[in-house]
């Protein structure tokens, strides 16, 4: 996170996303440390095309593809995010004090997303990793169907903290087409909820270490007791094959 050297307040109520993103590029260029965007109602692609650390606080409801292609900034959403948050994001962090929509973490290549509450369909679809670039998506609540669809890399954590006692995750087709990366889901899953391409394996010390770090960060952002969260069992899901469809069109 950048040290706050100067701060900027922008009233976004009458600004199109192009103007708003131009103002953000300008702020990055001028070395501004923190920008607060007020009255945000659905402007898309906020934070896209920014390549240096800057802290951006969004007050309102950012539009689709928040932080898409973002490379370095730290975004805090004081509200809910819509669909496609973190699309192809390269580095940086998005912290959402609320819920997020479908395809959160879509094709993400690096950086972290923390969502306090629930998320929609197809979260972390085609998230990927390469060498040191290993993205992470941490969901505090639960997720809908096709979680981790076609996931090719990275770490996806679902904590289920919004589930009531006895309530289970409803997501089906979890990890359909998954061929890389790892998922940790706190709470029980039935076999039918898993896609054909994933399998459940026991957690090892490295897994626990990774989870301790991410759950600790989650608690730093939103509160909660990491030890209590970690005391419940997690299901670890990994792909059964690195090329699940290698034979699909070959006879």
């Amino acid at each position: 996170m950048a040290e706050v050297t100067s701060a900027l307040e922008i009233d976004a109520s009458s600004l199109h996303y192009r103007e708003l993103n131009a103002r953000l590029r300008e702020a990055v260029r001028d070395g501004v440390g923190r920008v607060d965007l007020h009255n945000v109602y659905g402007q898309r692609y906020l934070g896209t095309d920014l390549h240096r650390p800057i802290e951006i606080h969004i007050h309102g409801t950012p539009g689709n593809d928040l932080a898409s292609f973002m490379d370095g900034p730290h975004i805090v959403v004081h509200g809910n995010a819509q669909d496609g948050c973190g699309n192809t994001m390269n580095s940086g962090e998005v912290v959402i004090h609320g819920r997020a929509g479908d395809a959160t973490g879509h094709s993400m290549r690096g950086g972290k997303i923390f969502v306090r509450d629930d998320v929609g369909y197809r979260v972390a679809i085609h998230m990927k990793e390469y060498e040191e670039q290993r993205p992470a998506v941490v969901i505090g609540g639960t997720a809908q169907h096709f979680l981790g669809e076609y996931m090719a890399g990275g770490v996806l954590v679902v904590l289920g903290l919004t589930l009531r006692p006895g309530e289970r995750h409803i997501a089906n087709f979890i990890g359909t087409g998954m061929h890389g990366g790892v998922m940790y889901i706190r709470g029980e899953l039935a076999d039918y909820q898993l896609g054909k391409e994933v399998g459940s394996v026991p957690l090892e010390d490295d897994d626990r270490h990774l989870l301790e770090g991410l759950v600790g960060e989650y608690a730093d952002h939103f509160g909660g007791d990491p030890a209590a969260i970690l005391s419940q069992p997690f299901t670890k899901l990994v792909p059964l094959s690195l090329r699940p469809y290698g034979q699909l069109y070959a006879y």
Partner: protein
Amino acid sequence: MRPISYENWYNDDKVYDACGLIGVMDVTGERFSGHDIVKGIVNMTERGNGLGSGFAAYGCYPEHADCYALHVMYTESESRPQVEALINESFILVHDEEVPHNPTPGLHHPPLIWRYFVRVDESDPNRDPQDESEYVVSKVMAVNTAGLGAYIYGSGKDVGVFKGVGHPEQIAEFFGIPEYDAYIWTAHNRFPTNTPGWWGGAHPFALLDWTVVHNGEVSSYGTNRRYLEMQGYHCTMHTDTEVMAYAADLLMRRHNLPVEVAAKVMAPPLWVEIERMPAQEGQLCRTLRQVYSSLLVNGPFTIIVARQGEMIGLTDRIRLRPLTAATQGNRLYLASEEAPIRLISPQLSRVWTPVGGEPVIGRLGMSLDREDASPQSRTAQPRQAHALAPVG
């Protein structure tokens, strides 16, 4: 403000679009101005491209609430006498007028649009008195298939349908949408993909008091259309969404299926899900898939369907198009995005993403503050609390 220089390496001229939908219902039946719905649909300007927008309003004609409000679009204005003769010989004409409109910059060649408030002659011996709706449907189809360049694109009692080719703010200005009051409003912002952008092809699509606004593509259009034609519905609007309006009428009015069942026809559970269901529910779903296989709506879709007393949001079974639902006070909101809902009502008691294939249903007289409606609730939806109440 100093001029902004764009330092954009990637040139974001390529803008991704899809249709935008929004619906607002007051479940107590209190009518409110179209001002809010215009604000909401205009907020989703990125989702359309100026080739279509429209509004449906329930309860907007209180002075003629018991009349069918026939909205007629004349792409060939010289056919008006012929259509009016047909209307006069089929109905009792109570009132007619050109639909009021304002000169609007940027709107090109609007057709002549007229509305006729009519009643069905109850003493007509040639007509089955039990089947007034069928009679109206047959007259609508007769005009639309006559090749006159005239289309009855709205035919409900106390239902206004306003649509055309333009951006939402233009269509709203053209028809003066904020000047109408209604207790259900739905609106559409179009980005046509497979079919032409013309005035009749804008959403909503309507028949009797049904209206449908739609985001997506009906891949099964051919199958659906052929089936509906066998039932007396004729597709004349050159747009896939039209089959949804007729399917809603067939399933829920003519075949009298509850919304929950009709939703399982149009967006049926997958076979693997049916296999896991309790025996009776599984049997119902299997039967529906067999009986109504030709009304399965394939392809990605989100629709907001409305009729008097009811507003329904539904997505395809694997949710390939977005829908956000929210409640505040007596209002139920459905929209493609959350932002337009927040713009209308910054405070919301609940916001959720409905599960694919499961309808969100708003009904007159229902309570939106039920215990299961906690902010954490993911699948809980407003459900029927009272029988459909008459509006008037």
